[in-house]
């Protein structure tokens, strides 16, 4: 083992560093449009090598973006955005649509724009919190999330 690997291994075993790549969120934007609030962000490393191998083995994988928006106490908007990724006959499918290659697949699922609140006129002046929990699952593999270096989550606080 090289010194760098040794150092990395120590950090991983001590829990300071993650075994698998961390899912990173950036380019996060929030904006109002057509009486709704949208969020736009980029999520990197959602499909890492280990997960790609599982997808390539033919196991369908679901990627969830669970969005929950609350005012002080009540949930005022709650929805799940799901990507179903499948590999069949050497071809990737995202929500049933054919994707040419893995790079394209990764790009497609990285850039996301979701509605996080609709009918915003009724919520005017309120302080709102939106939480987006990102998770991954597959049949018979309940702990697929463990193949990410972290449990990605976006929390947004804003006033309409």
């Amino acid at each position, binding site marked *: 083992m090289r010194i760098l690997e040794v150092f990395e*291994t120590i950090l991983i075993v001590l829990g300071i560093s993650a075994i698998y790549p961390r899912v990173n969120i950036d380019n996060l934007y929030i904006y109002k449009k057509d009486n709704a609030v949208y969020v736009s962000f980029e999520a990197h490393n959602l499909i890492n090598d280990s997960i790609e191998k599982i997808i390539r083995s033919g196991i369908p994988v679901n990627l969830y973006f669970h969005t929950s928006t609350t005012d002080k106490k009540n949930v005022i908007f709650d929805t799940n955005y799901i990507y179903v990724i499948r590999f069949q006959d050497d071809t990737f499918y995202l929500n049933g649509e054919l994707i040419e290659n893995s790079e394209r697949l990764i790009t497609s699922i990285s850039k996301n724009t979701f509605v996080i609140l609709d009918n915003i006129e009724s919520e005017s002046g309120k302080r709102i919190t939106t939480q987006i929990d990102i998770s991954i699952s597959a049949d018979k593999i309940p*702990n697929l999330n463990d*193949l990410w270096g972290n449990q990605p989550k976006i929390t947004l606080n804003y006033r309409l």
Partner: protein
Amino acid sequence: MKVRFIIVFIVSMVAILVSTIIFTYSSVLKINRDMQTEFIEPLKDISGDDPDILRHITVYEAFGEKRAVESTRNYVSLFLVLLLIMIALFMLFILGITRPIKKLSVKVDKAFLRDTKENFNFKEQGSAEVRTLICAFNKAFSRITQYEELVGDISRFRGWKEISRLIVHEVNNILSPARVYCEYLVEKSQNEDKAMMILKKIDEISGVLSKFREISHLPEANLKKTDIVPVICEVCKEFDNVVFMSEYEEMTLPIDTILFKEIIRNLIKNAVESGDSVNVTVRLLLENQNSVVSVEDNGCGISRNKLDSIFNPGFSTKSGNLGIGLSLVKSLIYEHNGNIEVESNPGKWTKFRVIIPAYKE
């Protein structure tokens, strides 16, 4: 010292932790590789293109690194727990040695430098070796205290000898011409009675001086192997009502005959003067390889609060006594490497025991 110890300890711990992690992780990876080459690869070959088996293998391989890290964490945790227990036990062991030694050193420091009269009896604690060390210290201090007393007594005795010599010399220089003039006055004086009174008082002063002369002229102890039975017998014959009892016809001890006689003589004299028609018994015994000369009387006894002071120079319970005898006895016994003990029942009896160690070739 402490900081250096802590740094060495931390560095050692980190080194142990790192080496344990690397060793364990390498071992787990090797097991995984062996599993891969000896089980997974043959399984792939056997399964052919069965998609279900291949999916399972893929999932197993995907979680391989996670399993390796978790196994390493488990082994390292177990090792660290054991290591910490060992360190705790080691620290307890070390503290069992260092704490009592530290307390002992503080006590020794206090006893030597601040309060030398403090009774040094340190509680035996810690490991067996430390208890042995503390026990040895206690014994050593006990001996030091004894020697201090002994040295003090010898010094006092020598001081008394020197002072006595000076007093005898100076007072005699004054008394000698006074006596001559007094005798002249007795012959020539019309008032002969008064002159006789002065002469009588001069004689009394001369009597006191003779006692000081005894001290000042005592020689240094010259110990020689001597049979003490005839020596004691000879001294006993100097007094009436003194019985000498000995089961031994002969007992050889390293003594200075003149000084030893002085010891026995003083003790018997002290016993005889303890009351009217007192019976005195001198016994010669052998106890624990030591010779014991016991001088017992049925006199007035000594009260308990005076027992501690009777060997102090100048202390006496009898009027007109200088209080030199027992102090002299104690000093002379020390010159013989011996010891003296006293027991008394006030109004009934008193027993002095002179303990002289047996002669060793």
